[in-house]
């Protein structure tokens, strides 16, 4: 046996050397860097002339009204263009986000995908050349008139993916979103509190509810992101809008450690210390939180317009929605933006049909369908007649913020890791285990590292 030892060792060394050679041979990602999509190609808007086309669409419109509008629009599109077959693949928001990265770099990528606006998703895909800029079709279909600048900035990147909010359009959103305040009118009346119309009144109302022995605010923050909306809502009132926009778009020149941001973080800490939130916010999940609010366990609930269908279904007439009331003399400001935009992949073999599809599902007719199915259309909102009830509040709030106020981007757009960093930091803030300045330093570190690397 001893005589074979050296040979075994030599074989092992050879195998190791071979493995190392094999491993250094190909750099990960090299198979994805194909030729950029051809520029200046002729745009074809006559879809019937394209012959049989199959469009693979990945969306995340899985809930009731969302799924319904998608089914109706897909059916109508295929009826108009019988030569087009839509292969729809629908998965939840989280599932789509985790699988899209792999799918786009694969050989069999879908034609149309819903990619989240932020740098973690759309920004990364644009930088990798996985999405087609929509500029040629935007002129042909008039999308630059359809969408105002305030919406277009949410789907615009420079082609290298470095600047967010400017450059070419990479996706079209169907719905709008606004984070506001849901309240329980019956509880307010029982406690003898008027519906607040200014930020000062709102904070006074929180104190009054607490003094009346009820829970002012419901929050379920296991996931981390729900607190971003609460912090964002406070920040929108206390920090200048342009600073928030720079921070949220991950642009150079802003800072998280300003006195205004510190004041906003301090305010959230104060709310937590004063017992304005339910017990154990970090141990309750988002679904449990809105359900608790719907059972009347709190008077207010800060959350996005996407809760409206569920809350209306459980609370009926006994829930209202308003944009965050602004501090006296300031314009109404709220976090919000668009639902996930639809984009065309570079791998699509039928970009013209895909563009026609995007045009169809965001057309004025589509906005009507969205309204009928209980969704909040991103454009032409004022032209719609929403069903009576909570929808009317949501439509009015979105119009008030988008048209006459300041619609400020989601804070997790800022960097690929910001959702995680801020989610964890705000959990610490709410638990009181980190003071506001330490929390903001953590967030600033993430932002500064990205901005420096991004250039």
């Amino acid at each position, binding site marked *: 046996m001893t005589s074979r030892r050296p040979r075994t060792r030599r074989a092992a060394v050879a195998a190791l050397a071979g493995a190392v050679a094999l491993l250094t041979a190909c750099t990960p990602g090299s198979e994805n860097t194909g030729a950029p999509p051809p520029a200046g190609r002729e745009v074809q808007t006559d879809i019937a002339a394209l012959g049989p086309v199959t469009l693979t669409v990945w969306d995340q419109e899985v809930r009731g009204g969302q799924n319904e509008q998608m089914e109706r629009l897909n059916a109508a599109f295929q009826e108009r263009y019988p030569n087009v077959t839509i292969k729809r693949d629908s998965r939840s928001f989280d599932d789509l986000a985790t699988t899209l*990265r792999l799918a786009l770099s694969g050989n069999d990528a879908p034609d149309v995908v819903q990619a989240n606006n932020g740098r973690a998703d759309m920004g990364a895909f644009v930088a990798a050349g996985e999405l087609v800029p929509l500029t040629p079709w935007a002129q042909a279909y008039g999308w630059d008139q359809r969408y105002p600048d305030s919406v277009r900035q949410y789907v615009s990147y420079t082609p290298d993916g470095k600047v967010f909010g400017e450059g070419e359009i990479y996706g079209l959103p169907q719905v709008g979103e606004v984070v506001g305040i849901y309240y329980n009118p019956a509880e307010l009346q029982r406690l003898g509190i008027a519906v607040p119309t200014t930020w000062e009144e709102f904070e006074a109302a929180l104190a009054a509810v607490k003094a009346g022995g009820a829970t002012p605010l419901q929050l379920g923050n296991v996931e981390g992101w729900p607190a971003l909306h609460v912090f964002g809502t406070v920040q929108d009132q206390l920090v200048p809008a342009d600073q928030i926009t720079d921070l949220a778009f991950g642009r150079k020149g802003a800072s998280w450690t300003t006195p205004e941001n510190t004041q906003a973080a301090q305010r959230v800490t104060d709310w937590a210390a004063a017992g304005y939130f339910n017990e154990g916010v970090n141990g309750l999940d988002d679904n449990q939180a809105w359900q608790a609010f719907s059972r009347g366990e709190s008077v207010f609930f800060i959350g996005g317009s996407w809760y409206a269908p569920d809350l209306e279904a459980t609370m009926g007439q006994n829930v209202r929605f308003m944009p965050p009331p602004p501090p006296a003399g300031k314009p109404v400001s709220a976090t919000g933006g668009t639902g996930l935009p639809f984009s065309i992949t570079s791998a699509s073999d039928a970009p013209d049909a895909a563009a026609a599809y995007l045009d169809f599902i965001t057309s004025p007719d589509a906005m009507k369908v969205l309204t009928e199915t209980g969704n909040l259309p991103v454009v032409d909102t004022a032209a719609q007649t929403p069903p009576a009830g909570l929808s009317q509040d949501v439509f009015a709030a979105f119009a008030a913020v988008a048209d006459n106020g300041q619609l400020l981007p989601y804070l997790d757009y800022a960097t690929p890791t910001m959702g995680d960093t801020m989610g964890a930091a705000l959990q610490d803030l709410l638990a009181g285990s980190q003071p506001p300045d330490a929390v903001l330093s953590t967030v600033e570190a993430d932002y500064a590292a990205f901005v420096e690397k991004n250039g």
Partner: protein
Amino acid sequence: MADAPRTSHLGPSPWHALAYVVPALAVYAAFVLYPLGRAVHLSLFDWDGLTLATFVGLGNYAEVVTDAGLRAAFGHALVLILFFALLPTAIGLVLASLLTRARLRGLPFFRTVVFLPQVVAMVVVGVAWRQLYAPDGSVNDLLELVGLGAVTRAWLGDPTFALPAVGVIGTWVQTGLVTVLLMAGISRIPDQLYEAARLDGAGPVREFFAITLPSVRAELAVALTLTVIAALKTFDLIYITTGGGPGNRTSVPSYEVYNRAFRLGEVGSAAAVGVTLTALIFVVNLAVVRIGERR
């Protein structure tokens, strides 16, 4: 392979033996060795999963050591060993001795009950315990019932108690496995040994340390190996119950691998964490097996 061994007088050539091994080896290589090599490869790059990667050498491994968040994740995994491996082994030893020696009626029933958590899918376990630990869940109800209302809290959202709370779930799950393994070991111990001990005047405690414990050494090694691996590679439980929170206080290496690779787009770093975790599991288990074999 120029110097292939010539047929020796000791029997057929080693190539014959190789022919028997090749099918299994091919499967093993394709599904274990190649992915492992690929992971090691990826761990040497800074890669977002989409664009061209940059070679960073051992930079990602340096990050595992220097990044406070990642260091903490490995620390949490080590804490979980206490809850997933050591506690269940201690409880399992006592339970197994009691169940086998006490000659209970309805023994199969108790054995089934103890083993049941092992059968339930971890996702189901996680969802169930999330309800138990909720601010208005059964754990808090129970505490209030016995007059401990002051210590009630949102267990999974508490900065201090979230990790132990997740650990207790692990203890609950793993105890069944350890108990059943040890029961098999104890039932093989000849009765004469206990008889002899009793004649020499040994009590139940002495019996346990003099006979039971040394006899189940092999089973203990197996139990520890399995539970330590389970502790170090915990993912599903964390994913379901806390998502690493609050404030990263329950993040573990496996969760970081998933988070970095699929959510943050830091594939190289994820691979480095995965490779480090694999190495750690290997080393810890080598130690356990060595201790188990020592006479």
